[in-house]
């Protein structure tokens, strides 16, 4: 567990978003409510509002992620912030020192917010501890640890289609071990009171600590998705297969790939989600990805509004109330 003490200010408002851990139900719901307010802006001809005018948002990406970076960039631009994109490849040498130096340099350019993606767990926490008090830090994915905005947009999507969290059955299918998304999702679902959370995965892709999570473990996909309202698929990363966690993609698809046929076991109006980018024919059949139960593109659409809400809230929390 990482130190998340500085994630909230004295009034309990979000001043950084580092992890879902430690957020209460009310705060998560208030983020979703605010995101709902921002949703309609995407439908206008002028898609920007002047909320963060004059603020500088820096995308600090130590790990490549075009999609996440793009949605954060677009969210910041829709709020009229100035956006700086920095892709910094981590060098194995002097990581700590160079990270801090990079940080101080950008901070000296009067940045107001860092959006951080890093291959190492805890990078965003570290940065949040180092920055000046007026700077907000958003974790856009750190190592295997957390990806809180993805989890929030997933919660937004689930609420949009299913309303009440307290009656839901949710299955998370795929590589749980390496997934920061899964970790954040499980925390969020559990905080929001989802009574039946299942993780469906081969034993080699389950974290050792899975027993401590508020989930049911299924190694059989058919059992795992039976009767569920929400099926969340995770991307199977090719590099994991090289590391001998799995034989190959085809084998995985045969056992754990969600097909139209297998999806019939879920509740009739179950929705299918995927954080993207998806591997068709590995974790998901094309017919499912493009089918009527898929809400994958809706997730992207909602993701923008959720990120706008998070950006606006973390900025709003660092000013004295007038």
């Amino acid at each position, binding site marked *: 567990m990482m130190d998340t003490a500085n994630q909230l200010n004295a009034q309990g408002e979000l001043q950084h978003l580092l992890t879902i851990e430690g957020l209460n139900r009310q705060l998560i719901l208030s983020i979703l409510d*605010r995101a709902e*307010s*921002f949703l309609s*802006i995407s439908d*206008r*001809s002028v898609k920007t*509002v*002047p909320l963060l005018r004059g603020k500088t948002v820096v995308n600090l990406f130590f790990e490549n992620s075009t999609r996440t970076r793009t949605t954060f960039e677009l969210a910041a631009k829709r709020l009229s912030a100035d956006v700086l994109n920095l892709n910094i490849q981590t060098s194995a040498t002097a990581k700590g020192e160079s990270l801090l130096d990079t940080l101080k340099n950008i901070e000296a350019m009067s940045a107001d917010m860092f959006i951080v993606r890093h291959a190492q767990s805890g990078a965003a926490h570290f940065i949040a501890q180092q920055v000046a008090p007026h700077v907000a830090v958003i974790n856009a994915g750190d190592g295997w640890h957390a990806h809180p905005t993805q989890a929030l947009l997933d919660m937004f999507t689930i609420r949009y289609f299913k309303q009440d969290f307290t009656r839901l059955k949710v299955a998370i299918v795929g590589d749980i071990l390496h997934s920061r998304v899964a970790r954040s999702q499980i925390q969020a679902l559990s905080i929001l009171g989802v009574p039946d959370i299942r993780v469906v995965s081969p034993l080699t892709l389950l974290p050792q600590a899975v027993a401590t999570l508020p989930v049911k473990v299924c190694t059989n996909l058919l059992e795992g998705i039976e009767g569920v309202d929400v099926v969340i698929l995770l991307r199977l990363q090719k590099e994991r297969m090289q590391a001998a966690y799995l034989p190959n993609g085809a084998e995985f698809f045969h056992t754990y790939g969600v097909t139209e046929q297998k999806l019939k076991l879920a509740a009739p109006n179950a929705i299918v989600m995927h954080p993207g980018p998806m591997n068709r024919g590995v974790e998901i059949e094309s017919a499912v990805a493009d089918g009527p139960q898929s809400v994958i593109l809706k997730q992207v659409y909602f993701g923008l509004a959720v990120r706008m809400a998070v950006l606006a809230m973390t900025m709003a*929390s660092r000013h*004295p109330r007038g």
Partner: protein
Amino acid sequence: MTQILLDHLSVSSLLDAMAQAILQRLQVRQLALSPIMLVGIQTGGVWIAEALQQRLQQVMELLPMGQLNINFYRDDFSENGLHPRVLPSNLVADIDQVHVLLVDDVLMSGRTVRAALNELFDYGRPASVMLVTLIDLDARQLPIQAEVVGKSLSLLPKQRIKLRGPQPLVIELVDQVEQVKKA
């Protein structure tokens, strides 16, 4: 301390008079047959706009009423933060070349109207904008004036007024307490 300043009957007769004044102004400006849209500013302005729409519709053609929520356009975001839940702005019809009657409940500093104008122009280019307000408080901080006013008032420094609604519409006078700032 809160007391009722204008009960629903008084508010209703103010609205009647405002509807008449709007018709007159439109005639003077030779706009009575042009495309006209009422746009209310959330939340109180929407209630007033609805009441005026009802009255005006009986004698003239109007486009569907619009709603603006100016919370994303406020100039006090850095001091006052973000409103917990912002009802979406909603302009059903295109506002290009439309004569907009911008409606608010209370005109005070003029900052809300400035923000509303900014937002309005993000939706399109209206042919004209006329400002209509139920209450005009003598406390302007910007060069903004309403063309149609229900009632003008001056308040003591510690007094605030608040519209309660939507049914019935009542104006309350709040004394002393530091209430939410109404721009």
